[in-house]
């Protein structure tokens, strides 16, 4: 945690945009200098971003962060908010509130993790995978996209070594049955200590079933429309299994990362 945050860990940070670049036809990446926030944020946490011209902030997973590193976001240009973010230019100010939510668990004693991402869900898992490699934890990453042009493997791992498996709708390789067989094969080849997923409810169900059968731990990052992102308004609830039975928990506060098996069908 950022030492200067004191008893008030969450605040709005005004960062200077240092890169604003389209990625493929539908995505965009933003890098900003926001040193205190970048040092404080953990993989799986998110920021609530002010989008020029839009009224509400938009929640965005942290894609790049670390001490002495820029803060980065990778997003699909979906509507007015993300279009405004994509319109930011070098030298502009990015108003990011954070760090928010509960991030992923990463045990330095683990030997290998498997991550399963669909579409821009890889933005949420990228920092986790890179952090794992820096802790000498092997990473097997299965990335699913519409077609090779929509795949952002480079944005996912950069120069960090990982075992990548790329699957696409265009050649049928991303079909859940095929992905299921691929995961099973990975479990035999190099059994992971934990699995992580983001970006698709279908892949989430698939991974729940396989991980449960093999007795492997897992976590999933999920999304929900947000108002405050601070736990105040209860806009962002999802049904989550808890020891006290199913509960509507706040994605912005108890999540966005939940135990893999606890996320109920939506």
């Amino acid at each position, binding site marked *: 945690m950022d030492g200067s945050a004191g008893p008030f860990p969450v605040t*709005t940070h005004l960062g200077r945009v240092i890169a604003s670049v389209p990625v493929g036809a539908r995505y965009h990446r933003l890098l900003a200098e926001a040193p205190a926030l970048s040092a404080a944020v953990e993989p799986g946490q998110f920021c609530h971003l002010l989008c020029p011209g839009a*009224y509400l902030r938009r929640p965005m997973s942290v894609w790049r962060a670390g001490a002495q590193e820029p803060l980065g976001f990778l997003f699909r240009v979906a509507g007015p908010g993300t279009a405004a973010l994509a319109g930011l230019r070098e030298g502009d100010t990015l108003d990011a509130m954070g760090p928010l939510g509960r991030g992923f668990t990463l045990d330095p004693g683990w030997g290998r993790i498997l991550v399963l991402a669909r579409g821009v869900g890889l933005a949420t898992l990228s920092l986790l995978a890179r952090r794992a490699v820096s802790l000498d934890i092997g990473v097997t990453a299965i990335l699913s996209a519409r077609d090779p042009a929509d795949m952002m493997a480079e944005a996912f791992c950069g120069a960090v070594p990982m075992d990548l498996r790329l699957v696409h709708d265009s050649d049928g390789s991303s079909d859940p049955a095929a992905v299921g067989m691929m995961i099973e094969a990975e479990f035999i080849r190099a059994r992971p200590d934990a699995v992580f997923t983001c970006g698709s409810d279908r892949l989430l169900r698939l991974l729940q079933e396989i991980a449960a059968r093999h007795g492997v731990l897992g976590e999933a990052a999920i999304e929900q*429309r947000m108002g*405050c992102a*601070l736990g*105040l*308004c*209860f*806009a962002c609830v999802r049904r989550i299994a808890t020891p006290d039975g199913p509960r*509507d928990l706040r994605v912005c506060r108890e999540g966005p990362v939940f135990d893999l098996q606890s996320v109920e069908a939506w």
Partner: protein
Amino acid sequence: MPDLSVRIGGLTLANPVMPASGTFGPELGEVFDLDRLGALVTKSVTPEPRRGNPTPRVAETGQGLLNSIGIPGKGIEAWIAYDLPVWRRFAAPLVVSLSAPTASAFAEAARALTVEGVAAIEANISCPNLEADGRAFAAEPGPAAAAIAAMRGATRLPIWAKLSPNTGDAAAVARACEEAGADALVVANTILGLAIDLATLRPALGAGMGGYSGPGFKPIALRLVWQCAQAVRIPVIGCGGIATGQDAVEFLAAGATAVQVGTASFIQPAAMLQVIEGISAFCTARGFSRVSDLTGIALPSLQRIAAE
């Protein structure tokens, strides 16, 4: 430094700025010291546990927010056992917002909330009245007064009646609440609205209609404060689209004694501190030694003199 303190029917607040119900919680204490607020206002508490509405529960529309949260909560018993102790850690006066399906349920819940640590009860009478086909209590003077009168008989705590813009005659509802024993009015709750998602061609909110708040709602709320302040002698607390000290001063001038800030905290989490500082700076710049001197200053003078 101007004197920022205000009196709301028996309670003295250190400053006139407090959160709006449903947009606030102890979680905001991770952003700033909540004891800098004039008062704390809880989400509406209900007699029974409620799950709330289907998602999506919020949508942006114009310069504002449409919400249909649906007052989820654990019910009053669990609230007193688990949430009240958390609120007691703060020093600012605690106002508990209460929502109930019948006048007698309002009374029973008000009795249950009459415990140490609760400074006032805000009656969210904008919620559906099960005894009137689900029409809001605050839609008409009769049911609004019945809920307030029932509570008046059940608690010694100050009762603030939170009015709804979804009524034909806000001043009549305001007067009815005053006559029924309310100590103050909160004006106002959200105004009903709708947004269509053009991707799905369905309502943007899971529940269909929702309540509109934020800057786009401000002129409507301000007009309601103006009307209600002229109709009653009890203090009016203004609420709707306030994000800055200047917004707050408009409400004070239109007859409010204090203000509530809701949706603005979603955009700038420390908005309430900016509002406090902005009011103070305005008073200093314009030579008002007491913020209470601003209350009603824009009202037609005849009415103002009559009200005093």
